[in-house]
């Protein structure tokens, strides 16, 4: 009896602990439940850089992190996955398309001076490019008919862009020396432009660059991802010292959206390696709320059905099992919070299934207890015997489930892992509650209340003792 009192005290302490944990901390909800976007970004190799080292992956991650910060989403998570991927979670993001554009873009900004004696060639190419762009727009209005022509035009455009790039000296100044970039309305028209400011070193490079070409009629090429955005000329008044102060604007007939995206990308810096968004899972906030509500109602109603069944079928032990199951649910939830499990839809499923496992252990024990009672044992011996004999079954069946969980956790990806963790925690706690809570409460009832001891029918209706 002393043993049972100690055990009950222990369970009581655990319960208080669980309640404290649950009131102080909350379970973080997965994006499928709270709504938001989850993007997986694949880092790609180039001809020069053929392997992605941990360092390079980290530096890509830093750039992505900067860009994510620029989006102004609260509580974003940026993590590396495997050897070449980055996972970005943006809870409650309102414009997933913007996030994709900003995170997936390369935005390699370069300032190049036009080569000497290329004036005429540049004019021609620039004109050709304008024409091709206009042509493309026209073709796109009937895109399915002109598919072949569109592709052809795109190819030509690529070629012209490459030729224009060749007319400029290699970059003297890149976006890495950028300190600030922000969108602002252009002085004329509805267009927007991006204002940039360089750091000290960048500022002096910019001054040198502008001094060299000032008054020559040659342009200062501003390239974004090897594509010319604009090529302003610098007037002769700057021939002495160049444009000092380290500020410049990039104008290219941007819309508000384009200018803002570009500013975020520039602020975030340029990526050391090209990236591609290979996975995007976005769930609207309302959809998430709806599915969590429905799943919680479903789990609760399922749980109640199970509790009723146990009470009706197994009588007093069934009610005691119900108590143990409620404790199980509380402890499991507290464990989720402590371990830092993010609750997702599969996670909820894992939780519901672990309730099934917890019930199974009790069923095994009670069936055994009934057998012992039918064999003519006293109530106390029957209860003890029931636990003793059910133990190996419970252990074996739970261990096999844990083995499956381990395999899932080891090899599975995000979703599968979450399921494995929640199921494994559930199985472990169900072992504890079945073998400790149910047992202690049952023995407490049998030992502590003589009236119960005289009524074995509370444990097994229609008890007919066999010889």
């Amino acid at each position, binding site marked *: 009896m002393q043993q049972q009192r100690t055990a009950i005290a222990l369970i009581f302490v655990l319960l208080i602990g669980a309640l404290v944990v649950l009131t102080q901390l909350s379970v973080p909800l997965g994006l499928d439940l709270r709504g938001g976007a989850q993007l997986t970004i694949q880092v790609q190799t180039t001809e020069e850089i053929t392997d992605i080292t941990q360092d390079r992956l980290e530096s890509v991650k830093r750039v992505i992190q900067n860009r994510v910060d620029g989006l102004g989403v609260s509580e974003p998570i940026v993590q590396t996955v495997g050897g070449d991927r980055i996972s970005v979670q943006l809870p409650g993001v309102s414009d997933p398309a913007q996030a994709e554009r900003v995170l997936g873009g390369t935005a390699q900004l370069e300032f190049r001076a036009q080569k000497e004696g290329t004036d005429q060639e540049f004019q021609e190419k620039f004109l050709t490019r304008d024409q091709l762009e206009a042509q493309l727009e026209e073709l796109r209005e009937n895109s399915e008919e002109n598919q072949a022509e569109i592709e052809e035009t795109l190819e030509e455009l690529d070629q012209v862009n490459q030729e224009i790039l060749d007319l400029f000296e290699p970059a003297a100044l890149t976006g890495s020396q950028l300190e600030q970039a922000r969108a602002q309305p252009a002085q004329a028209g509805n267009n927007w432009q991006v204002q940039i400011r360089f750091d000290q070193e960048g500022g002096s490079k910019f001054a040198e660059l502008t001094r060299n070409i000032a008054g020559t009629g040659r342009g200062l090429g501003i390239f974004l991802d090897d594509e010319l955005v604009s090529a302003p000329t610098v007037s002769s008044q700057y021939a002495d010292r160049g444009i000092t102060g380290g500020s410049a604007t990039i104008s290219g007939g941007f819309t508000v959206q384009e200018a803002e995206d570009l500013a975020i990308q520039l602020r975030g810096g340029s990526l050391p390696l090209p990236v*591609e968004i290979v996975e995007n899972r976005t769930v609207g906030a309302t959809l998430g709320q709806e599915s969590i509500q429905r*799943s919680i109602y479903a789990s609760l109603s399922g749980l109640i059905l199970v509790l009723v069944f146990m009470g009706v079928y197994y009588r007093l032990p069934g009610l005691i099992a119900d108590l143990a199951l409620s404790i199980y649910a509380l402890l499991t939830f507290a464990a989720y919070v402590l371990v830092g499990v993010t609750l997702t839809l599969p996670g909820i499923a894992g939780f519901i299934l672990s309730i099934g496992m917890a019930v199974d252990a009790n069923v095994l024990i009670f069936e055994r207890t009934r057998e012992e009672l039918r064999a003519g044992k006293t109530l106390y011996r029957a209860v003890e015997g029931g636990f003793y004999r059910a133990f190996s079954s419970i252990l074996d069946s739970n261990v096999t489930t844990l083995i499956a969980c381990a*395999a899932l956790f080891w090899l599975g990806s995000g979703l599968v892992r979450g399921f494995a963790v929640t199921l494994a925690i559930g199985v472990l706690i169900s072992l504890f509650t079945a073998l400790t809570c149910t047992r202690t409460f049952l023995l407490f009832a049998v030992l502590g209340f003589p009236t119960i001891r005289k009524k074995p029918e509370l444990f097994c209706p229609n008890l007919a003792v066999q010889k």
Partner: protein
Amino acid sequence: MKLNVIKQRYFWWLLSALTVIISLLAMIVSYLQFEAPLRPSLDFVGGTRLQLELDCSIPQNCDEPIAISEVQEILEAQGLPDARAQVFGENETGLSIRAQTLDVEERSELQDALEANFGQFDPTTIQIDTVGPTIGEELFTSGILALLVSFFGIIVYISIRFQLDYAIFAILALFHDALITAGVFSILGLVAMVEVDSLFLVALLTIIGFSVNDTVVIYDRIRETGQQEPEASIAKVVDDAVNQTLTRSINTTLTTILPLLAILLFGGETLKEFALALIIGFLLGAYSSIFLASTLLAWWRERQETTQQKPFSEQV
């Protein structure tokens, strides 16, 4: 109630064999149609799914249901003739489109074209899933790998706790359960367009866990009964063990399936098919433990006894 599993074993074996054959046939038909044994969702083959709902808080925005023919026209104009569109919701104000992988520009263009035609969509109900083909492949291979590793782990554990032949029949029963569950979904894919996603892989893994669970409980009883009555034939031992654990099998299956039924009926959209797969799998798990794993074990042990005794009888 008392089951006589050993006596009826040929009936159960035939039933299982037939169901397995039907499942395999469904998968072959499905393979010819989708190049996969089950209708794969974009989790496995890659692509983009876009789900939108009209914003009904704007007056007159939801008056007309979305016309699927108009959607199809827009899709073709966007150069996506292979895309599939579906309308859902009470007033047909929801739209789900499944297409090849679309990048952000293509997707925005499509969305703009749809908005221009049908009215404003509610941004809080939007759902986008884009999965690159490599990701899908990886999900699949990692899932299959996880499956094989857990098979191996389970075989090793049961071989240690029981014996190797116990483990082999447990795995056989488990294959049976997974295969038929997949078969049912293969048929559903053919007749009701049900697709399997990565949650289905999770479901299969769970079914395997539960199937082994059930089998282990009966094995445990067979071992115990066999030790108590060393003189009894293996057939009788198995029959007794099955009957002694029958109430437990029924009750456990019932209590596990109750919450799943609740999810199937009331749960969120994504979990419904998951719950259905688990219900089918758990029922099969209980069935195969009682009627297959145990009877096959009895048959195998009987056979072994007779082959071992044979040399003696020949000598006489």
